[in-house]
């Protein structure tokens, strides 16, 4: 175990002035010198694309790596709801401070104040930037920007573009990126997967990639490496994440020395369409906004087989309204998810697999008329109908919670630098701003804040002193070693030739995690998972079957590498969950709840970010703690009763 000084480099001074002070005090690179620096950006989601485009505009030489065939396909494209910004265009009392406060509170007081405040500050510029790029945000008749409200906030500060906000924001960043590619500042490597980070003398000096079409293993050298590779939700197999989202990049960085923070903080989203069978490949999110008009219920009778319209009002249990009279159906995500789980566990679930609860729009349809509902939710309802074949105007929708977002990720300081100098992490890949629970419409905000505004301002601090040095040549031993390791790994996966497909192992891992480390966890289940996962991993190494070769497109091989990493990462996730003897945000430990079943935080012992250090295969990771100090907000127990 190394001695780590987990210094977050939080600037001095009053909260509201920290960022400005910091921007002034960091070292800068002179414009004419910037082209002498090469920065490698891995990942083309909101965080990666915006960072690469902005660094390119500044004049750095940027290498962009993505496994997609075009940057526009990154998982960020799927975000539906919206993006927050403290514009206060509604005159409803919003402010930077309020957005900051809501985010810290929503995160159950497990995030770093200074980071969150900066996020709230730049949120305002993000909207301006996106509008200037041509993002067609929803408008009012007068031509001004429209807003909607989202869970966990009492103000209307969410900007949106129909149900496709993520798509439009990503296209804006993608277009800015392609403009830079056109101008020659950014070089794009598509269908190229990063498989390792190369460290020399304790600094990140490049990455090793595999060309997914030709199988060539190639190194890229740079002065700094930026990982914007998204979240790890797919470790659960079934999640709302895109199928190819994975943890490999951050896991490889972790194995090379970057600390992994709070992996057990995963967000479960309450309103997803329940799985319909074992072949189910992924879960689809239904926007949270449905909870504004939909009432959530299950039959009172256990195992009630009647169709919903046969169940009279008196025999329905509107369990959220019953348990949380003040917030009703609009309680935050974690609370709503657990409540639904409780009903399903009590065998009152509905649908063919008894794995959902009803979300019923009929009352709202009667009250407001079908037209209003159609205008508000038309495309969601259509999507639901397409997937399930049921018509929500007549039959209540069925929903169930599903894994959605990863609050945890690589530990980064205020500059977004990991514990490895020269290695940065952005967007969902880092752990920074959401604490133990993320508020709706805040992930897009964070990704763009990191990419457009934070990293471009802070990276100079690391680069400036390197002026005059060249990137390490890629025939340097450090690169050759890393390349050899990667090739060996690929060869090993192809060589097993066992009897089970990669998906089989992924699905098994998902089951272990969902059952033992899902919406509710306990010492017992976690310990069970911690024995099951290593067994599964051994089985994987002995019995996986990857057909085809390594010299052409081989999607099984791609998956195999990712699942191999998930099998290691999943264990760390459980270990983190086991060590955190409290319930907070997305992490609910059965042992730590109030009498009426609510999460019980332990600020005295656990007000810290848990940062794990990799200590070797099959060795126990070492825990480091970054204490969280709350100077501006008062730690309070969340209550939604």
């Amino acid at each position, binding site marked *: 175990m190394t001695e780590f000084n987990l210094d977050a480099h939080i600037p001095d001074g009053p909260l509201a002035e920290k960022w400005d002070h910091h921007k002034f005090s960091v070292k800068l690179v002179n414009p004419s010198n910037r082209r002498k620096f090469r920065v490698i950006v891995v990942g083309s989601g909101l965080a990666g694309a915006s960072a690469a485009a902005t660094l390119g505009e500044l004049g750095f030489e940027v*290498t962009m790596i993505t496994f997609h065939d075009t940057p526009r396909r990154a998982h960020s494209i799927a975000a539906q709801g919206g993006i927050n910004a403290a514009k206060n265009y509604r005159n409803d009392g919003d402010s930077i401070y309020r957005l900051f406060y809501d985010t810290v509170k929503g995160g159950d007081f497990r995030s770093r104040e200074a980071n969150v405040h900066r996020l709230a500050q730049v949120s305002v510029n993000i909207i301006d930037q996106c509008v200037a790029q041509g993002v067609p945000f929803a408008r009012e008749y007068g031509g001004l920007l429209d807003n909607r409200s989202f869970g966990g906030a009492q103000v209307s500060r969410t900007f949106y573009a129909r149900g496709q906000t993520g798509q439009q924001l990503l296209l804006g960043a993608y277009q800015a990126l392609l403009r830079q*590619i*056109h*101008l*020659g500042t950014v*070089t*794009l*490597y*598509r*269908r190229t997967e990063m498989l390792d980070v190369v460290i020399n003398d304790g600094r990140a000096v490049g990455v090793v990639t595999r060309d997914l*079409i*030709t199988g060539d293993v190639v190194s890229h050298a740079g002065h700094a490496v930026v990982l914007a590779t998204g979240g790890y939700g797919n470790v659960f197999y079934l999640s709302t994440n895109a199928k190819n989202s994975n943890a490999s990049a951050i896991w490889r960085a972790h194995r090379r020395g970057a600390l992994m923070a709070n992996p057990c903080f995963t967000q479960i989203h309450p309103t997803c369409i329940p799985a319909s069978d074992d072949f189910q490949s992924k879960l689809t999110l239904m926007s949270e906004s449905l909870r504004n008009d939909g009432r959530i219920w299950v039959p009172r009778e256990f195992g009630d087989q009647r169709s919903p319209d046969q169940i009279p009002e008196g025999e329905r249990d509107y369990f959220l309204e019953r348990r949380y009279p003040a917030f009703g159906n609009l309680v935050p995500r974690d609370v709503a998810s657990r409540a639904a789980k409780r009903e399903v566990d009590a065998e009152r679930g509905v649908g063919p697999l008894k794995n959902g609860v009803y979300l019923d729009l009929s009352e709202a349809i009667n009250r407001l008329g079908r037209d209003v509902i159609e205008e508000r939710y038309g495309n969601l309802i259509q999507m639901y109908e397409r997937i399930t074949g049921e018509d929500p105007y007549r039959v209540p929708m069925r929903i169930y919670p599903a894994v959605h977002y990863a609050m945890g990720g690589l530990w980064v300081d205020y500059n977004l630098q990991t514990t490895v100098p020269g290695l940065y992490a952005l967007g969902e890949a880092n752990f920074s701003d959401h604490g133990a629970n993320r508020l709706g419409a805040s992930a897009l905000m964070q990704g763009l804040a990191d990419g457009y505004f934070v990293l471009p301002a802070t990276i100079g601090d690391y680069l400036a002193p390197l002026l005059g040095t060249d990137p390490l040549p890629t025939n340097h031993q450090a690169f050759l070693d890393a390349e050899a390791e990667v090739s060996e790994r690929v060869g090993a996966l192809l060589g097993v030739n066992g009897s089970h497909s990669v998906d089989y192992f992924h699905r098994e891992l998902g089951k272990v995690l969902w059952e033992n480390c899902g919406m509710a966890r306990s010492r017992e289940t976690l310990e069970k998972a911690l024995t099951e996962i290593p067994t599964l991993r051994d089985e994987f190494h002995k019995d996986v079957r990857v057909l085809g070769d390594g010299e052409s497109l081989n999607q099984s091989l791609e998956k195999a590498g990712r699942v191999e990493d998930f099998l290691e990462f999943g264990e760390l996730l459980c270990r983190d969950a086991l060590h955190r003897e409290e319930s907070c945000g997305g992490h609910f430990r059965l042992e730590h709840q109030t009498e009426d079943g609510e999460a019980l935080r332990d600020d005295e012992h656990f007000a810290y970010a848990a940062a794990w250090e990799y200590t070797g295969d099959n060795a126990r990771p070492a825990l480091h703690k970054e204490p969280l100090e709350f100077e501006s907000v008062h730690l309070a127990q969340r209550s939604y009763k």
Partner: protein
Amino acid sequence: MTRLDGVPSTEDQNEDADAADRLLRSTGAPVPGQRQVPFPLQFWRSAIGKKWAMAVSGIVLLTYVLAHMIGNLKVFLGKNEINTYAAWLRTLGEPALPRTVLLWGLRTGLTAAFVIHIVAAVQLTRMNRRARPERYQSKRDYASANYASRTMRWTGIIVALFVIFHLADLTWGVANPHFVRGDPYDNLFYSFQRVPVAIFYIIANIALAFHIFHGAWSMFQSLGVNNPRYNRWKRYFATGFAGLIMVGNVSMPLLITTGVVSR
């Protein structure tokens, strides 16, 4: 900072960029080249420019076909009417212009329209072939492309062949043994006495109607005329125009050959 010189984006970048381009190389997609030329040529070079030219020449041709049909329909009014009309054509523009000068002017314009229209059609067809050298190996199931739109090339060729024969038949007389210059009335009746000729006329004019059914609709799109309020009128216009031309033009060979109308 957009570059207007049209240089492909990655060719002039650093070596790495070329490496990034390797994907296209390894998958064998050609990177087409392109040169810069002055304005009208540049416009003509673009497919949209060619379509614009096709639409404009198409309008000329449509106008001609309509006017020509109206003139020809006088054949039903009797020999005098149509022959007077034919003679009038030759004196058109008099006395401001010498005899037949305006007619020759119109003929030149018409020929130019045909040439532009056909050259563009040929070039666009080749471009489209290049864009999909390997066809689908299974059966296509078209949902919107109708018979008329998919046969534009064939109906166009039929019309072109028809025009050549038609000129030989009624203008130069080489394909009409009874040809008498300046007597279109008799020429027509002689011509249509031959059943195969009449059938060819009928087929060609049906083909023309199909061509117009799609062309008179799509030309608005090529010209960029689009307003959701009036869009459906484009369809009515094209259908009406095509129907009118078909009925008018087919009626002549049909009625004359079957003897419903006789001299």
